[in-house]
């Protein structure tokens, strides 16, 4: 990796990849070179199932500004649902 900036968290839920839905067990969040987004660095989020190999991935590559909007949107949605934790 070029920047070595990566954070991981265990998650539960499902993601839809090229081969359909699969169970998620981890999310990897990095700030590094994207594969597709037209940016030198991107906030990359990979929802994965570690047991199912590299293709079990739902990936997004966002500009830092977009990533911050996503964080706010997630927190707002959780807040409206009266959830905490």
């Amino acid at each position: 990796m070029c920047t070595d900036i990566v954070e991981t968290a265990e998650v539960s839920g499902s993601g839809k990849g090229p081969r359909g839905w699969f169970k998620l067990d981890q999310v990897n969040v990095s700030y590094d070179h994207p594969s597709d987004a037209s940016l030198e660095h991107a906030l990359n989020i990979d929802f994965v199932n570690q047991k199912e190999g590299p293709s079990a991935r739902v990936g997004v590559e966002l500009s830092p500004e977009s990533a911050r909007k996503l964080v706010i949107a997630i927190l707002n949605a959780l807040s409206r649902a009266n959830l905490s934790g």
Partner: protein
Amino acid sequence: MHKYTTDMYEGMLAETVTHQGYGGDIINAYFARPLGSGPFPGVVLIPHMPGWDEWYRETTRKFAHHGYLALSPNIYYRFGHGSPDDVAAKARGSGGVADDSVLGDAEGALRLLKSLPLSNKRVGVFGTCSSGRQAFLSACRLKGFDAAVDCWGGRVVMSKEELTPKRPVSPIEYTKDLSCPLLGLFGEEDENPNPQQVQLLEQELKKYGKTYEFHMYPKAGHGFFYYDRPGYRQEQAVDGWKKLFAFFGKYLETTT
């Protein structure tokens, strides 16, 4: 340098092969070579973080077109198989590839190239971005490379906080062990490595009397060879390739 003229026969073989890598593992690699009996110089291309991808395959063939036995080991082999970006993402999420693992794979590639009857027994190592760093590291920690090219290798200079179990030593600490001439191509607008970090490396190279050639390009940042990325800079890339082939030509195309 490119010696092709329109009246020449030219042929190339490019294919996936396997060779021994780190820990005795058999890994796959992409091998491109000119047709003919040689002898040819060789180059090991360590793939960058976006993966063992199309750009690295194209670049491997580019070296073959220029008369090299070009071998690009799949340093991500142990993360499984899939599209290059999926495999690279898996590696990224696992904290990247350990330096020792990359070195073992690069050494295996070096040994394969030198063992070939087509080889002139001179082999260089090439890398960009994360693999620019790994190319420098290979030239310091492995014996047998005859020239090295580090294109904008980030984190050759690492702070203590950046060290990890997979990358336990800042590569600059190994400068005294550099065993071959080094070419460095960098962009003035790059943040990783930034010009100050490049300067620190240059100071170390001078301190230990190493043979090196650094070029710092204005109006270029990180990855200015990558024609498919926003950082591509045509003028700087063309000049960089010329300097790279002149450098490898000088140190690899002669037999001693």
